[in-house]
C-alpha cells in the first residue's frame, strides 16, 4: 500500500469513485457496515455526503430529487440541506454529514461523520 493511501485509510478517508459516476442532480450510495451514505452531486458538480436516512422516518435520501443544494426525501417530501444535513424549516431534524473532497475528478469521502448532528447514528425508523 502506498504511503498516501495508507494515511487516508487511517483517517478513515476513502476514494469512492469519480464525480462522473453520479448523475448531475442525482446521488448514489456508499454501502458501509454502519449503514448507507448518500453521495450527492449538484448541477455545478459540487459533491456532498449525508447519512442515507431522512430525519423524519428514515427515508433513503439518496433516492430523492436533488435541486439546488437540497434534496427532497422520496417518502414524505421533507427537504434536507445538502451542505448542513439540516431539514429545511419548518421541519426539524438533521442527517449526519460526512466530509467529502474532490481531487482531479475523484471523490474522497471520510467515513467519520461530522459532529453536531445528535441523531446521526441513531436514526428513528
Amino acid at each position, binding site marked *: 500500500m502506498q504511503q498516501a493511501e495508507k494515511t487516508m485509510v487511517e483517517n478513515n478517508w476513502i476514494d469512492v469513485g469519480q464525480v462522473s459516476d453520479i448523475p*448531475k442532480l442525482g446521488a448514489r450510495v456508499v454501502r458501509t*457496515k454502519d449503514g*448507507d451514505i448518500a453521495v450527492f452531486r449538484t448541477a455545478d458538480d459540487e459533491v456532498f455526503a449525508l447519512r442515507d436516512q431522512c430525519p423524519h422516518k428514515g427515508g433513503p435520501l439518496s433516492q430523492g430529487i436533488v435541486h439546488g443544494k437540497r434534496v427532497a426525501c422520496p417518502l414524505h417530501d421533507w427537504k434536507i440541506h445538502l451542505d448542513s444535513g439540516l431539514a429545511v424549516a419548518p421541519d426539524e431534524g438533521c442527517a449526519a454529514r460526512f466530509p467529502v473532497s474532490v481531487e482531479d475528478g475523484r471523490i474522497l469521502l471520510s467515513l467519520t461523520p461530522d459532529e453536531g448532528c445528535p441523531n446521526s447514528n441513531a436514526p428513528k425508523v
Partner: protein
Amino acid sequence: MKQRLVLIGNGMAGVRTLEELLKLAPDRYDITVFGAEPYGNYNRILLSPVLAGEKTIEQIMLNDEQWYVDNGITLHEGKQVTAIDRTKRIVRAADGTEEKYDRLILATGSMPFIIPIPGKDLPGVVAFRDIQDVDRMLAAASGKGHAVVIGGGLLGLEAANGLLKQGMRVSVVHLLDTLMEKQLDKPAAGLLKRSLEERGLNFLMGAQTEAILGKDKVEAVRFKDGLEIPADLVVMAVGIRPNAELAKQVGLHCERGVVVNDTMQTFDPRVYAVGECVQHRGDTYGLVAPLFEQAKVCANHLAELGYARYEGSVTSTKLKVTGIDLFSAGDFQGDDSTEEMVLQDPGRGVYKKVVVKDNRIQGAVMYGDTIDGSWYFQLMRDNTDISGFRDNLLFGQAHLGDSGHGDDNRVAAMADSAEICGCNGVCKGDIVKAISDKRLFTLDEVRAHTKASSSCGSCTGLVEALLAHTLGGEYSQTPSKKPLCPCTEHNHDELRTAIRAEGLKSVRAVMDHLNWKTEDGCPKCRPALNYYLLCQWPGEYKDDNQSRFINERVHANIQKDGTYSVIPRMWGGETTPKELMAIAQIAEKWNVPTVHVTGGQRIDLLGIKKEDLPGIWGDLSEAGFVSGHAYGKAIRTVKTCVGKTWCRFGTQDSTQMGIDLEKLTWGSWTPHKFKLAVSGCPRNCAEATIKDFGVVCVDSGYELHVGGNGGVKVRATDFLCHVKTEDEVKEYCAAFLQLYREEAHYLERTAPWVERVGLAYIKDRVVEDAENRAALAERFGLSQQFAQVDPWKARAEGLDAHEYSPLKRVG
C-alpha cells in the same frame, strides 16, 4: 392551399368573429378584411366617453394595425366594398381592389337614421356613429355655442352629455314626453331627466323637428309649432337602420337586415353575416352583447366545428353617462296580467321596478342603484321561480343570505353563474377564476384576460369589487392555480403554451427561456416540465431521469423501508397457470417476502431490494411479462370482469375489450395516474364507474364513462357517450386520453380536470367533433410508438445500471 376568408366591415362584430375563429382554428384561413373607416378596429361603444373627453381614441382601439400583421391578416383600411361577384367569388372595393373568397363574412353594421327634412345635408348636421362624427362634433364644440341633439334615446343622451362636458350649451329634442322610452318607464325617465337637467342639459319634450335652417351651415332648428332655436351644431340621434345596402345590391335575401339562419349563414351558404346588419328570426340588434354571441356562433361554423347555434338574445341596457346608474331589461312596462314591485327612495335618488308574472320576472328598470341588475336579468333569463324570496327581491341579492353592506358583500353573494359583463357575457365565476388562476391584480389585467368591463365599461364597479373580494383574505382559501411553484411566475397552461409555441425542448431550455428564479427548479416543477416536454415532443424529447420521482426513475414503487415492489402487467386482469407458475418460481428464487393481489387485479411482489430489481425484471421479462407501471403517473391497469364468455349476465366480451384497451394504452405517461375498467354488463362488477375511463358493456354496444376515481374523495364517472363497436371504444379511449394528456395540469387527475373544463367541453372535443377525435387518437398513436418500450427489459439488459448498484461497498 388554405381557404380564403374575406370580412367586409372592420367593426366590432366582424373582428370579434375573427378573434373567436383564431382561437378555434388559427391556421384554417387566409384572412382579408375590408373596412370603410381608415382605422383598425375600435370600441364604438366608447365613442361616448371620447366625446366627453374621458378617453382618447388610442384608449378605445381594440385591435390596432399591428394586430392584423401579427395574425397574418390583410387589412384594406379605408376601402369600401362596392361589389361582390358571387359566382366568381370576388369582392371589389371602390378603388378597384379585388379579393377572392371561399367564405365571406358581412359585418357592415348599421347606418344612422337621418330624418328626411329640409336642411339635413347642411354642414354642421352630424350623426353619432363613428370617429369621424366625433371629430366633427369636437371641432364644432371648440367654438362652444349651442348644440341641438335630436333624439332623447341612449345615443342622443350620451352625445348631449359629451357635448355638455366639452363646454357647449346643449338642448335635447325628443318627440315623446319620456326619455329613452324604449328602455325606461315614466318614473325612471323622470329621475333621469331631473338629474340630467341638474347637470345643465335643456330638454324640449314632445317637440317635432320640421326643418334645419341655415345658408352655408347650420344656424337654427325649427319645430312644427313654429318655435325656432339657434344652433351651431345639430346631432341626429334618432335611431339606426341595418346597413344591408351591399347585400341587397348583390341579391342576398334581405328584409330589414340581411336575413340569416341559426348558424349565421345568409341565403348564400358561402356568405355569413354578423352584427347590426343582420336580421335573425325577425329581430335586429343594436347592442354588442347579442352581436358577440353571433360572432361566437359564426366562428364555430367557420372553424367547421359546426355545433353552435344562435337562438336569439334577450338584451339589457345600461346608460354610460358617468355618475348615472341606469339599467333596464325585458318587459318593464307590464300589463294587466303582470304585477309590479316598486321601490322608490327619492332621497337617495333610487328607483327600482321589477315586473313579475306568475312569480317569474318579466323585466326590470332600475335607476340610481343598479347593482342587482345582472341578478334580475339572470333570474329573468333563467325563468326562475322567485316565490321563495319574493319579499326580499327588491332589496337585492345580498339580502337573501346574511345581511351585508357594500359592493364587496354584494358580489360575494352573487352566484358564480351570475353575469357581470353583459356585453361580453362574462360571469362572476369566469372572472374570479381568471383572477385567481392567472393571478390578476388590476382592472386592466381582468379586461385583457376575460374581456369583462372591456366594452361599455358599466360593469367596472362590479369587476373592481370582485377583484377586491377575490384577492382579499377570504378567497385565498380556495385553491387558486397560482404559478406552478415558487420557481416561476408562470402557471401550468402558460408553460405548456410556451413549450409548444417557442419550441422549447428541454427542462433547461424552459427554465432559461422563462427566467426561472431558481438554479435548477424544485421537485414540483421539474417533474411537471419533464412531463409537458415528453407529451409535447414524442420521440424527440429525451426523458430527464433526474427530474422524475424516484418511482418513475427506477420503475418500481419505493416502500417505507426503502425496498421496492414489482407488479408485472397482467393484461385485462387475466392470467394463465403458466404465468402463475412463472411468478411463483421467480418469487421463490428472489425470496420475495410478500405476494399480494392488488385492487387492480395484478400480483404484487413486495420487499425487493433495489439491487435485485434488474435481476428479477430479467426473469419476469423472460417469462413474457412487462412492467405494469404501478409506480407511475401513467396508464395503470385495465380491470375487467369475466363478461359474456362466462357470466350469465354478460353482454359483451369485456375481458377481451379490456385486454385490447390495455394493449393500446400501456406505457403512456399521463399527468396523473390513469386507470381503466371494463364491466360486462351494468351490474358493473369491474367498478368501471370509478375509473378514469370506464366501459360498461350493454346489449347494444358500450357505454363510455370518464372522470371517476376511488381514493380519498370518491367520484363517480360522468357518462360520455354510447358507442357500438370495439373499434369505436378504442378510438374514443385514445382520444379522451390524449386530450387529458395534452390539456390537464400535471398531477391533476381526470376527475378534477373534467370538473374544471366541464364535461360539455370534453364532449365537444371527443364526441361531437369526429375530425378532432380522429386527430387526437392519431396523436396518441404516434406518441405510443415511442412509449411502448418495456422499461424493465431495457434495465435488465443494463440501462441506467448506476441506479441499481452502490457507488462503492466498504467493509
